[in-house]
């Protein structure tokens, strides 16, 4: 299956059809996408700033209790994002800003997975105010940079149309 075939499949999918047939679907999707952005970024800001040592009185384990909020926000954005893509796969798939955004999402996801499997178990037990290992702080910095990069790349999509 080549890319053109994949784009055609996405375009003709049930999701693509309801997005094009219902004039309010895309707008509702965007409202959900920006609400998801606020949930994901609010949780990530608090978690990453805590891991970086900016909120010394928050125990890392308490900050990481916000992960479900981040996952809910991400799920909202993934589902609505798939709908936008299916609405017009050529418009998004061939857009360099969209391509950069997807690479950044994958990198941010890989960073989050690495943290979850390699560090999460120990970090949740760390007391508040303790300087966490360098690799954890690097991961938290990357997380903030990548997610903010996702926002910027997403907003640049219209500039390349």
């Amino acid at each position: 299956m080549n890319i053109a075939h994949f784009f055609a499949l996405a375009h003709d999918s049930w999701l693509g059809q309801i997005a094009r047939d219902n004039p309010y679907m895309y707008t509702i999707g965007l409202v959900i996408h920006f609400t998801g952005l606020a949930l994901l970024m609010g949780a990530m800001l608090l978690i990453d700033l805590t891991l970086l040592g900016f909120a010394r009185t928050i125990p890392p384990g308490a900050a990481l209790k916000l992960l479900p909020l981040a996952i809910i926000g991400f799920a909202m954005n993934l589902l609505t994002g798939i709908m936008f893509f299916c609405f017009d796969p050529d418009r998004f798939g061939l857009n360099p800003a969209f391509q950069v955004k997807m690479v950044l999402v994958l990198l941010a996801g890989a960073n989050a997975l690495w943290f979850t499997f390699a560090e999460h178990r120990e970090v949740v037990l760390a007391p508040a105010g303790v300087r966490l290992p360098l690799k954890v702080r690097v991961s938290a910095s990357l997380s903030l940079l990548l997610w903010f990069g996702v926002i910027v790349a997403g907003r640049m999509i219209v500039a390349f149309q």
Partner: protein
Amino acid sequence: MELFAWLQDLPISEWVQTSDYGFPLLLAAHSIGLAAVVGILVVLNLRVLGYAEGIPIAALSRLMPVAWVGFVINALSGILLFMANATRLVTNWAFLVKMTAVLLGGIATWILWRTLKQRTPQDGAPAYRVTPSALLTARISLGVWFAAILFGRIIAYVMDHAMLHGGA
């Protein structure tokens, strides 16, 4: 109305209107600010409502500067976005509702902190306590910030609609 026409004709407004990257860059800044200000406030309000109770409210008060940075980014980018379309936005109902929501969101946040903060003991740090009125304020605050996002998204559709029908 002349004031808004004058604002819209300023060189910086014209740059935003005509350059390839003016609007996207301002909207990118506006979204970063949204992430910081609404993101932190959503976490604060959810914490007040009992989610992630291990996070001390006093620690969230120290993250308020992050929300303030987001607010300033959005005020500045918002002013430039407004100037570029001043004459049309000033009569755009979605824009006016959004501005009201942002104002109410600010007031709700101010009330929330006043309600949370117990009278400071003579010595020592301020203490915070979740009261029933804090719970109510947190619920209202969440609704109002969601409304700000919702009506912010609708602004563009109201503008396009006005243009399609020969409006300003």
